[in-house]
């Protein structure tokens, strides 16, 4: 049995805005083992990125964790002070952001920004830090690293900048790398390069990855385990095969039906999910997906369903499954 690296339990996180409380994360539990590649999928506003920043201890004002725990590698993150957090952020857990254009500092050279991480977390001297930076840039496939270290972010292309971000993220060989939509701003051919690189590095330095994306294709390619989120709730988790071949939650099913598949031979009409994403200021009382769900029942509008365990790894929160389980039980009793 591998070690549990990250364990989020019943996490609640709200943003207290002038318009009211936005429940960005509403009682979510996620756990992952060492060496896993975990994919978090969901549409904008589902809470993917908020989860990531909570793990990093970077929840921004007016957001606040109001319940639950985050345990990472022996640290209880939600109880740590900023000073303690700084010691592990960048060293044990690091993050790659969506937009490589804005997440690098434009007034410092690439070298400066990579060496900053090394200076903070390791006791390498200047010369050693420089050599390590050269090594890191080589690792992420940037040629002429000595020249690049002297350049500024604007002199590099989007793909190169994202590589630099990855190099910074990997500088201290973290246990966990959180990639928040790392390739959304990039073209497909560059995306393929970056994803390939991440998987290669994962095996080389034995880290775990949380991959946050809305692209189901990327998730199918990379992830062992998938968490599907909707409106601040986890609605289904399972292995990649379970989610793609045996989805149980109506949202997951709808999502899979609504994307065109490049390898399908004939022209099938897409089946969209009707309606619009929920307004988190006024979330519905029951299951958040109920207003858009084709199978919606009365109870769905009133109460949130519990998780139904379908296998050791697969669970889903939907009243349909509860109903099936109940009916089966009744049949057995008869």
């Amino acid at each position: 049995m591998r070690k549990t690296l990250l364990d989020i339990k019943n996490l609640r996180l709200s943003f207290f805005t002038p318009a009211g409380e936005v429940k960005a994360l509403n009682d979510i539990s996620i756990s992952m083992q060492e060496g896993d590649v975990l994919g978090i999928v969901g549409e904008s506003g589902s809470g993917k990125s908020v989860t990531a920043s909570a793990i990093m201890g970077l929840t921004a004002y007016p957001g606040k964790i109001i319940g639950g725990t985050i345990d990472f590698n022996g640290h209880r993150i939600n109880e740590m002070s900023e000073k303690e957090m700084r010691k592990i952020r960048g060293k044990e857990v690091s993050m790659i952001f969506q937009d490589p254009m804005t997440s690098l500092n434009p007034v410092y050279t690439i070298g400066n920004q990579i060496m900053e991480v090394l200076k903070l977390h390791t006791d390498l001297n200047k010369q050693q830090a420089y050599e390590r930076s050269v090594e890191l840039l080589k690792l992420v496939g940037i040629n002429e690293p000595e020249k690049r270290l002297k350049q500024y972010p604007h002199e590099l292309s989007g793909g190169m900048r994202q590589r630099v971000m990855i190099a910074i993220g990997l500088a201290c060989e973290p246990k966990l790398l959180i990639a928040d939509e790392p390739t959304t701003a990039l073209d497909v051919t560059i995306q393929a390069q970056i994803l390939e690189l991440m998987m290669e590095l994962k095996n080389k330095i034995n880290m775990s990855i949380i991959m946050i994306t809305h692209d189901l294709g990327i998730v199918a390619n990379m992830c062992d385990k998938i968490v599907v989120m909707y409106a601040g709730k986890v609605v289904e988790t399972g292995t990649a095969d379970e989610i793609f071949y045996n989805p149980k939650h109506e949202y997951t099913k709808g999502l899979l039906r609504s994307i065109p598949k490049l390898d399908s031979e004939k022209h099938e009409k897409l089946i969209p999910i009707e309606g619009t994403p929920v307004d988190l200021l006024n979330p519905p009382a029951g299951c958040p997906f109920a207003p858009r769900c084709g199978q919606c029942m009365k109870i769905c509008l009133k109460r949130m369903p519990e998780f139904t365990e379908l296998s050791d790894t697969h669970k889903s929160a939907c009243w349909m499954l509860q109903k099936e389980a109940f009916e089966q039980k009744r049949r057995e009793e008869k």
Partner: protein
Amino acid sequence: MSLANEKSTKNNTLVEVRNLKQYFPVSYGLFSKKYIKAIDDVSFNIKRGETLGLVGESGCGKTTTGRSILRLYEPTGGRIIYDGVDITKVDMKPYRKKMQIVFQDPYASLDPRMTVGDIIGEPIDINKLAGSKKERTYMILEMLNRVGLNSEHANRYPHEFSGGQRQRIGIARALAVNPEFIVCDEPISALDVSIQAQIVNMFEELQEKMGLTYLFIAHDISVVEHISNRIGVMYLGKLVELADSHELVFHNVHPYTRSLISAVPIPDPASSRKRKRIVLEGDVPSPLNPPSGCRFCTRCPYADERCKTEEPKLTEISNGHYAACHHLDKVQGN
């Protein structure tokens, strides 16, 4: 006889683009001027009632092509023939009624100070399509209806709508003048996955009902494959391959198309495990200094001396399938 001939071509081909060139001047130093060759000698036809997809990476010229066809830019060279008439130099006013565009960003393309009714009514007013105020209102409501919105939406402002609804408003505005041809410039890339299918289906339904012809520009190849009859692939201002969409996805011959298609992540764990990706080296060169000869030669695995000096021409390799490459036999052998 000749007249009948002319008539039949007039009926089949709606838009004909011949050797279109679009250069943008950029100042370079104090006196010298350089040109970005955004589109360089591109030719294709769009048949009446069909959807032609254009794909390629950012900066390849797909958006510029769409805008040049509508003469939103003045083409540097070449000809645009619409319904048998050369419109490269004519006054566009009468053609604006026939040719419309839907933009990428539904947040930026609607005037925030106008009500939805006025946004849709503006093209009706400009083209004096409504005889009376009552008729105008009726036409606006009809358009709203057609894109799945209802009459109460006419008095609201764009900020009150979600991304998907705004895109519907943008489409209603394009449809208001009852056009024949619509350039769809990345109309779904700013939308959530669950909403994309709604909009794609709507484009298809409208095409069926109103007999529209689309130029569908997008970087998401799975969506383009789904909606288009034929697809053109662009690279650095050149059309490198053009074929029926099924043919292009499954029997592509240009090395760039191959790597582009293989880089698209497929939302299916089993087939993506089996699939072999062709990962390209490096980035797209700057359009300011495109490579001589074949523009793809710097990243192409098949490139040799000839590719560096001689530019390949777009030639028909089988019925309706065009490609521009010197080494088609070698690529196909693989």
